[in-house]
């Protein structure tokens, strides 16, 4: 399968701290890939670098064969990468529909002058955008919620709205940052199915950051494990589950790390499934 995104020898430093150290990483087209690792392993930093929010210090990130690490975030989105956030970042005082319409920004071309004049083309375009937005709302099970302010939606609906907004940019690669955080087991199951649906129906490659091992193991085709900014393992879910370095990273490095990792697992899922099991 063709590679859609590839990172080569990527290094990111914050002062003296090396947050991401010489990581190589590939995402095949139309695949579901996960990054896991203990807290502070550099996962979100890695996400930010792909989407252009943190400039990388060394190395190269290329998307569909062209380097993107020098582009601005909006340019990267324009190439076809979109993302969600760990702590949901909707536009809280805009309605659900408007949130999605903002996501369509790149595909609407009317200038402000024609918008002021209200030309037929602008109207047709707006009409199409609205229909598309409604379609996306339906796709994420938010039918009829278009007029609600985003901040007043329930938690799960906000998560789905954020994904819908990301999908509105028509990405080829979708980055999900802990999509199951704060969800109950039932909702988590729905989410897993939903992610599959995005890939199967829309043909979008998906990169996940996830703490929730049941989701990760159930859904990913490949998993990359980061620890202290370094890639310590890569492979299919079963390979990762039996990889000794991964087990060490999660369990073996002193009581504090272990305690934290376990606490986190227990917090995010009642029936904990650590890689060691």
């Amino acid at each position: 399968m063709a590679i859609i995104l590839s990172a080569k020898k990527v290094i990111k430093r914050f002062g003296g701290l090396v947050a991401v150290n010489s990581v190589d990483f590939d995402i095949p087209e139309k695949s579901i890939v996960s990054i896991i690792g203990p807290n502070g392993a550099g996962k979100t930093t890695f996400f930010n670098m792909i989407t252009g929010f943190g400039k990388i210090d060394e190395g190269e990130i290329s998307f569909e064969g062209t380097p993107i690490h020098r582009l601005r975030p909006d340019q990267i989105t324009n190439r076809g990468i979109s993302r969600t956030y760990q702590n949901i970042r909707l536009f809280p005082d805009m309605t659900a529909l408007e949130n999605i319409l903002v996501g369509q920004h790149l595909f609407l071309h009317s200038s402000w002058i024609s918008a002021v004049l209200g030309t037929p083309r602008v109207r047709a375009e707006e009409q199409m955008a609205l229909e598309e937005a409604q379609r996306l709302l339906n796709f994420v099970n938010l039918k009829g919620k278009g007029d609600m302010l985003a901040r007043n939606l329930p938690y799960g609906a906000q998560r789905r709205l954020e994904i819908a907004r990301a999908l509105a940019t028509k990405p080829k690669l979708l980055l999900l940052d802990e999509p199951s955080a704060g969800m109950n087991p039932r909702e988590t199951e729905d989410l897993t199915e939903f992610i599959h649906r995005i890939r199967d129906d829309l043909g979008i490659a998906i990169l996940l950051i996830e703490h929730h091992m049941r989701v990760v193991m159930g859904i990913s085709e490949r998993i990359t494990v980061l620890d202290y900014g370094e890639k310590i393992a890569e492979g299919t879910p079963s390979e990762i589950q039996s990889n000794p370095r991964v087990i060490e990273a999660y369990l073996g490095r002193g009581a504090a790390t272990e305690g934290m990792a376990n606490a986190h697992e227990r917090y995010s899922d009642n029936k904990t499934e650590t890689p060691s099991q």
Partner: protein
Amino acid sequence: MRTSFGERLLDLAVNGFLWGFRILIVVIVVLGTFLTIRAGKYTSEQWIDFVVFGISQGSIYALIALGYTMVYGILRMINFAHGEIFMSGAFGGYFIATWLTGIGFMDKYPVFGLIISMMFGMLVSTLIALLVERIAYRPLRGAPRLVPLISAIGASFFLQYTFRGFFGPGVYAYPSMKALDGEWIFFGIGILKVQIVVTIAAVVMMSILYSIVMFTKIGKAMRAVSENKDVAALMGIDVNRIIVTTFALGAAMAGAAGVLYALTYRQVNFFTGFTPGIKAFTAAVLGGIGNIPGAMVGGLVLGIVESVGPALFLDSIGIPRPYQLKDAIAYIMLVMILLFRPSGILGERVSKKA
């Protein structure tokens, strides 16, 4: 790929503009300085006068700037009403100084008279600052940044026009102190007594504040709160009390500055606080906002540049009455710092997104 030509042009325009702006300012400064020095229009006594005036003015800015910087350090908020707090100190000092002059105390004990006036100005400023904090700022803690800023702008105008209501739109002339008239001669150069007294008083106030912040328990707590409010609270620090103390200390400095400013200019009116307020903010940003020594350095730099600038940079490049543009120099410095180095001279690098 749609990174259009237009977009690239826009990027170019932004960068080009910023560089053009820098270059223009540098050219004016360098060319102006060169021409002025070559023309030799000003004597060295005049230059010394400019610098001394700049230092005394700058030390007042520094005193006011401390209030901005400390409040910003703790609450990440621009206390827009700080200029009015400063003005209220000048008014407080005015009434007590007039009274002391009236009963003859000021002429007999000028030092004590001055100290009493400053103390009273500080008291008035502190009280008003605490009221403002309680009514207009405290309920808005944790709100989006624009909200307390707008409230502060409101407080600023409310105070200005309250004072206008209390004392009318007229200008109050400060009583003249015989002890401060005239000059002292150093190495054959006469320096106005007022300027020396003002500078010394400001330096004393700043040292007091600095020792409070650095060496007392409450100062330590203040520094802790400005590092991280939540952690400080976990350590058993009463964050609210620290915030109030910070406002009070900053206001006291502004009050003292108000009296000193009024001694220099011999007058006070309800609008007195506005311009020095903005300039002191400039000083605070110049030194790196949140940074106490930075505010002091920033104040001095601003005072000197503003005092020397019109003659040094502008006079010889054909600008008539350059002193009209004295304030413009300060504002241009303000804009330049905000644009090019928002962390200030001494500030650590603050991310743009902070």
